């Protein structure tokens, strides 16, 4: 079992075994959505894997060519629906680069807090879901309990639990509510102990260890070659985090460690995420300390909606501004931009080509899950079908993002 195999047949099968074509999914609880894997099986061994994706293809890129920039925010929510604030942030940053504007400092802090909450939400899901895929149900129930707290925070800030659409070009939609500060401090106090609980639940679970340690190893060179990013890449020992290496927003003002592990197996990928959650809490705490008062949306009438809604009813200029932005959107100078952030799943990039109109000429989403899913081809030591499930779970693809 220590010998590395690349999802290829073991040498010399028994003469009376026959290859079987096995369809896993698209409706299967352990495929995390509508992923269909066509597996060529030799008994219990997976010989070849062919992922069929596209069951959730909604044509986000084509649709966005027909939407104004503000209208695209709800579309980005639906990419990685576990952590929409990150997607909103990535898109907003790309458009802001094209417009050559920046969000006010307070807005940047708010965005980072929301993006880190999103990361916690995404990582919590996989922290619980991977053990569940492997038969350890309990962790998921506890993880969901804490995830509910994050959902409540999201609802408090944005009015929605999942599809937040909270960012706007030039800032965020609304300021943080007053009760947010108390609630999030409470959460930050409770949460690190809860992370310890998950570790205790799963870390010494023999079954979980047996099914993840040394399974689905991705070597560092392979990980880079396969374009892995995020925790999946760092679990293979490649030290790259866009938050640190190409800092955006206020990530250069906060201290955090980039978690890497060297094993590159399913356990390392799970472990990496658990430890990243601690760093996220650290970032949120620092943000809360440093966050200044001020505007939450830039004062640029051609781009941003009027902040004071009462003025819309009393001032003609504000009414026209509001109407103009809602009905026609704002024009973005012609040009191209590629802007990437460290989303919970990895490098989330938006490539936008603008022709100077209020709608993008072309918008390409570099979806991390789409790229990470390809690593199914490159894992070593995952010969059994059951290992396949562990590998798939540990890669943490969100099918809505894979299919765009």
């Amino acid at each position, binding site marked *: 079992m220590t010998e590395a195999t690349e999802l290829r047949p073991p040498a010399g099968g028994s003469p009376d075994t026959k290859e079987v074509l096995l369809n896993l999914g698209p409706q299967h609880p352990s495929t995390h959505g509508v992923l269909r894997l066509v597996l060529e099986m030799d008994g219990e061994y997976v010989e070849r894997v062919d992922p069929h*994706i*596209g069951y959730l*293809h909604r*044509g986000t*890129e*084509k*649709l966005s060519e*027909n939407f104004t920039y503000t209208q695209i925010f709800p579309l980005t929510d639906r990419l990685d629906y576990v952590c929409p604030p990150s997607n909103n942030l990535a898109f907003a940053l790309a458009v802001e*680069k*094209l417009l050559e504007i920046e969000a006010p400092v307070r807005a940047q802090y708010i965005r980072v807090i929301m993006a880190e909450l999103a990361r916690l939400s995404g990582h919590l899901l996989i922290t619980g879901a991977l053990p569940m895929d492997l038969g350890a149900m309990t962790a998921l129930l506890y993880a969901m309990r804490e995830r509910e707290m994050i959902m409540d925070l999201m609802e408090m800030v944005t009015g929605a639990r999942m599809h937040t659409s909270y960012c706007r070009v030039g800032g965020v939609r609304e300021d943080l509510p007053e009760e947010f500060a108390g609630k999030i401090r409470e959460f930050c106090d409770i949460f690190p102990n809860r992370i310890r609980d998950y570790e205790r639940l799963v870390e010494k679970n023999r079954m979980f260890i047996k099914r993840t340690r040394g399974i689905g190893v991705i070597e560092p060179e*392979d990980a*880079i*070659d*396969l*374009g892995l990013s995020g925790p999946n890449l760092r679990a293979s020992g*490649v030290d*790259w985090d866009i938050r640190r*290496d*190409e800092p955006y927003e206020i990530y250069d003002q906060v201290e955090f460690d980039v978690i890497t592990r060297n094993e590159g197996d399913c356990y390392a990928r799970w472990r990496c995420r658990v430890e990243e959650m601690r760093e996220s809490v650290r970032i949120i705490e620092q943000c809360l300390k440093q966050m200044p008062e001020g505007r939450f949306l830039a004062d640029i009438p051609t781009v941003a909606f009027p902040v004071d809604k009462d003025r819309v009813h009393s001032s003609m200029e504000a009414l026209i501004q509001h109407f103009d932005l809602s009905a026609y959107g704002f024009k973005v100078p012609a*040009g*191209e*931009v*590629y*802007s*990437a952030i460290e989303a919970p799943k990895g*490098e989330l*990039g938006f*490539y936008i*080509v603008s022709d100077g109109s209020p709608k993008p000429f*072309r918008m*390409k989403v*570099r979806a991390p899950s*789409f*790229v990470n899913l*390809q690593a199914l*081809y*490159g894992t070593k030591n995952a010969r059994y079908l059951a290992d396949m499930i562990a590998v798939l779970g540990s890669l943490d693809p969100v099918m809505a993002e894979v*299919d*765009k």
Partner: protein
Amino acid sequence: MTGAAVPFIARLEKRFGDTVSYTGVSHGIHIFTASPEIIVDLCRFLKEELGFNFLSDICGVDYLPDTPRFEVVYHLYSLSDKWRIRLKCRLEDPPHIASVAGVWRTANWHEREAWDMYGITFDGHPDLRRIYMWEGFEGFPQRKDFPLRGYRDELNPFGAEGVPPTRPDLETKNIPGGTGGKS
């Protein structure tokens, strides 16, 4: 300006001459336009000699009605030097370019996506099939001349009138149960 700030620009121009041209830096990314014939050599050189070991993304763009109509855009990143570059290749209709799946394995799905959405053929690709649309689908949906709601048929009463203007996907045309080959 060229090559002064960033060492790899001079090396690229020395190695590839006129076939690669530097068009400046925009929003932190150095942009090069390359002629499509040299793309595999260029990518291999960038990866092996200049350290651009991470392929972020490959995508197609349709510039209808401009000519050349299509463009393939590569976003590369150097994990050691923290540089990003963008390579752009303009392609005539019907678009053809060599596949870089032999240079980075991650290019496999990116190129399949560009084929599926824009009908850009990547010569030498190991497995050029549709990736998002189903087998037997006709046309390339992200092309600018493909209607937003698709074409009308028994499954799509809201689509536009007409037949797909692009040639059908011959590889997957005669799949049993598919809608291929009816035009």
